[in-house]
């Protein structure tokens, strides 16, 4: 009876169906005569309706119901697909998404949908004044819009299949102490005979134990007497009256009541679902479980390094062999668990087509969105976080990048702009690129703006490469759009995008050719929680430097470190690169006992800039588990987190990006 158990499944499936409706609607807009697409949408909407009604979300059910009506007319070719139809349907889908989201957030999922329903109805009726003679449409016309009407349809269908609807009035003994338990037992007893489609008061109230008198409607094939008999078997039931349910009376019942059990049609839909699931050979696993597994595995990794340390101390061959084997096995396990956490980036991408469509409309732009590599997989943590930055970049491109059709014509380009979203794997990274064929970044404009905003001086500007000028638009408080629109251009945003991506351990870079277009490219790590690092020693503390940003390690003599304009530099393969001393950066005392003049240096890379980091000594390579420093120590300079070493000590993980100038 408790619908809570099913809420997660409901949410998952609702989202899937909404997404399907979304995708198909976009297709339908392009191929408005393809009725198989309408069928697809209809199916998804129908399933959604069934599920929502089962779970007692009337607003979702009634809205989808009206969508169905419209779709049905399209399917029967009595209504043509127009932009207006698509627009209203999209708005309805948006409202549905909002409601589902509200349910996900633990709310009631209620929303005033009367306006939308009215619009859908207007389309349904207005476009086709003469009433269709088909039975479906005729029945639809009879119906008013609240859920009770919908329940009636369910009742009708059940009756057609030989079910009878009975109404029962149950009164519990006055002295009954555990009313909730009794009510539950009654409900159980009735459910043995069929499906309860409604209780009054609601199941929640019954279970709260406040009620000693309630009524319910049950669909059953058993004779009334049998049902009554089973209810009377429950003790402390004073009376249970059963009568054939007369539909008209029930119409007066308040619309807020719950439908508490699976309806026939929802069942058939679910059967379809199960069949699909069997063929695809996958199971749904709660994300929390995978996260828990990952957390446990992180502890194994910590113990593994402890074991490795111990084994190398003890120097017992058998032990060492076992530990090595365990290390190999656990590495395989690690990659398996990581792949389990991987989800296709499609999850993020698939909301973009509709967004782009809407934006283009709002901004009077004409463009196509191409999505390539939506199947590329990324760690779930990254997926959860990457959506907003991408939305911002896309908005930015459509608002500032792609020109209006007239301007494009003038510039000799195709009137229709194009925006390409591309995701792909490369090495230990995933790249997401967003390329447009718009106006590109205007160096002069950016430069003028940067000077005006005091980001830098003219003298500094001259030294900057085009690339560096492009990256100025990522600085905070920067916006070159001449008119500030509500889409983008408030001067907050791109800097937020940049810091968000960096907080995910990623990098954002821009390539742009004026007049031809721009390319924003995001490089993201495959996983966030376990990383390969080089451990180094600085003033008796151990720091871990992520291998992904290390180019090379060097041992240089003191005299090879030169001074240039007050900055220490070294000659690294013919390039002069700056050197920073971790001791200086971290403000720890210089060691008094410098045993040699040989200086260990780690060369790290950010973008195409290199910097040497001066440390005391190298310790070795280690897989470490990234632990957050917590809310209390946020935004510590050049530290991205901490990890626990094999001996139980805490080592800080360095963020080399902060050290590269």
């Amino acid at each position: 009876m408790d619908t809570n158990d099913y809420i997660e499944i409901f949410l998952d499936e609702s989202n899937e169906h909404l997404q399907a409706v979304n995708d198909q609607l976009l297709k339908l807009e392009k191929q408005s005569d393809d009725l198989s697409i309408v069928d697809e949408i209809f199916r998804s909407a129908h399933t959604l309706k069934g599920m929502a009604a089962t779970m007692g979300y009337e607003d979702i059910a009634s809205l989808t119901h009206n969508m169905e009506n419209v779709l049905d007319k399209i399917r029967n070719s009595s209504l043509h697909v127009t932009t207006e139809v698509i627009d209203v349907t999209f708005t309805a889908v948006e409202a549905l998404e909002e409601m589902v989201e509200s349910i996900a957030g633990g709310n009631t999922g209620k929303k005033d949908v009367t306006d939308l329903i009215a619009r859908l109805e207007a389309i349904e009726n207005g476009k086709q004044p003469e009433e269709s003679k088909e039975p479906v449409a005729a029945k639809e016309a009879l119906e008013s819009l609240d859920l009770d009407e919908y329940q009636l349809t369910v009742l009708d269908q059940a009756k057609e299949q030989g079910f009878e609807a009975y109404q029962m009035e149950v009164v519990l003994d006055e002295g009954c102490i555990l009313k909730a338990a009794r009510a539950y037992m009654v409900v159980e007893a009735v459910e043995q005979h069929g499906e309860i489609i409604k209780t009054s008061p609601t199941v929640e109230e019954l279970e709260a134990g406040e009620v000693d008198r309630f009524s319910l409607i049950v669909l059953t094939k058993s004779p009334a007497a049998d049902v009554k008999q089973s209810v009377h078997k429950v003790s402390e039931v004073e009376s249970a009256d059963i009568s054939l349910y007369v539909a008209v009376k029930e119409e007066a019942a308040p619309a807020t009541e719950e439908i508490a059990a699976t309806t026939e049609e929802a069942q058939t839909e679910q059967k379809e679902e199960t069949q699909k699931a069997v063929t695809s050979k996958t199971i749904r696993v709660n994300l929390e479980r995978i996260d828990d597994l990952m957390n446990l595995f992180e502890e194994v990794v910590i113990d593994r390094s402890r074991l490795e340390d111990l084994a190398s101390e003890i120097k017992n061959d058998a032990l060492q062999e076992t530990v090595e084997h365990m290390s190999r096995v656990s590495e395989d396990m690690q990659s398996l668990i990581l792949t389990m956490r991987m989800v296709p980036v499609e999850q993020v991408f698939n909301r973009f087509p509709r967004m782009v469509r809407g934006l283009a409309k709002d901004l009077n732009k004409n463009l196509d969105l191409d999505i390539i590599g939506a199947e590329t997989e990324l760690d779930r943590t990254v997926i959860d976080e990457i959506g907003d930055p991408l939305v911002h970049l896309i908005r930015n491109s459509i608002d500032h990048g792609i020109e209006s059709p007239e301007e494009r014509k003038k510039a000799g380009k195709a009137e229709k702009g194009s925006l390409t979203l591309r995701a792909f794997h490369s090495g230990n990274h995933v790249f997401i690129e967003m390329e447009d064929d718009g106006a590109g970044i205007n160096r002069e404009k950016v430069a003028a703006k940067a000077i005006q905003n005091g980001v830098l001086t003219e003298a500094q500007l001259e030294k900057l490469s085009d690339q560096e000028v492009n990256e100025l638009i990522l600085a905070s408080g920067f916006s070159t759009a001449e008119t500030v629109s509500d889409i983008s251009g408030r001067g907050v945003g791109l800097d937020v995008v940049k810091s968000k991506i960096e907080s995910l351990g990623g990098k954002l870079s821009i390539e742009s050719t004026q007049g031809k277009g721009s390319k924003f490219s995001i490089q993201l790590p495959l996983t966030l929680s376990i990383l390969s690092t080089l451990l180094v020693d600085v003033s008796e503390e151990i720091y871990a430097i992520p291998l992904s940003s290390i180019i090379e390690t060097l041992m240089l003599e003191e005299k090879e470190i030169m001074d240039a304009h007050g900055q220490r530099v070294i000659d690294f393969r013919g390039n002069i690169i700056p050197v920073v001393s971790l001791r200086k950066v971290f403000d720890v005392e210089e060691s008094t006992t410098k045993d040699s003049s040989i200086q260990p240096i780690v060369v790290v890379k950010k973008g195409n800039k290199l910097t040497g980091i001066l440390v005391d000594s190298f310790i070795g390579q280690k897989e470490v588990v990234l632990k957050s420093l917590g809310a209390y120590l946020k935004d510590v300079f050049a530290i991205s987190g901490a990890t626990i070493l094999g001996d139980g000590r805490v080592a800080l993980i360095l963020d080399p990006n902060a050290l590269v100038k």
Partner: protein
Amino acid sequence: MEEVRKFIVFTLKNQSYGVDVRQVHSIERLQKVTEVPRTASFIKGVINLRGTTIPVIDLRERLWIGETETTDESRFLIVEINEMQVGLLVDGANEVLDIGAEAIEPPPGMIAGVDAQYLEGVAKLREELLILLDLEHILDVNEVQEVKQAIN
């Protein structure tokens, strides 16, 4: 019925202080602290507490009453405020006391050198005063940021 609260009593500079027992996660012996560079000076660093990294702060420095010299008696008081665990370095943790609500008075402006803004109240016991700390305020993240900026 009179309300009785339980307090963990610990010492700082020979003065007894109390924090609500519900805010205290555990009391730990000292262990190696990994320094976190470029943070406020009262932040001693992070420790590994059974697999989690927890920041530890020197409570004396946080309350502006000097700096702690650690002894065998020194302890980390692991407290949890707003789902955030923080270790407090104290001179020693002694006992748990039941204190009735009527024994607690609002803090005077300054007591034992500690500013009233960090205090929840003062409890009068038979022999001495017990200063009750307002951990929410002491560990307020925004305030920490401010302190950090003030120091830099």
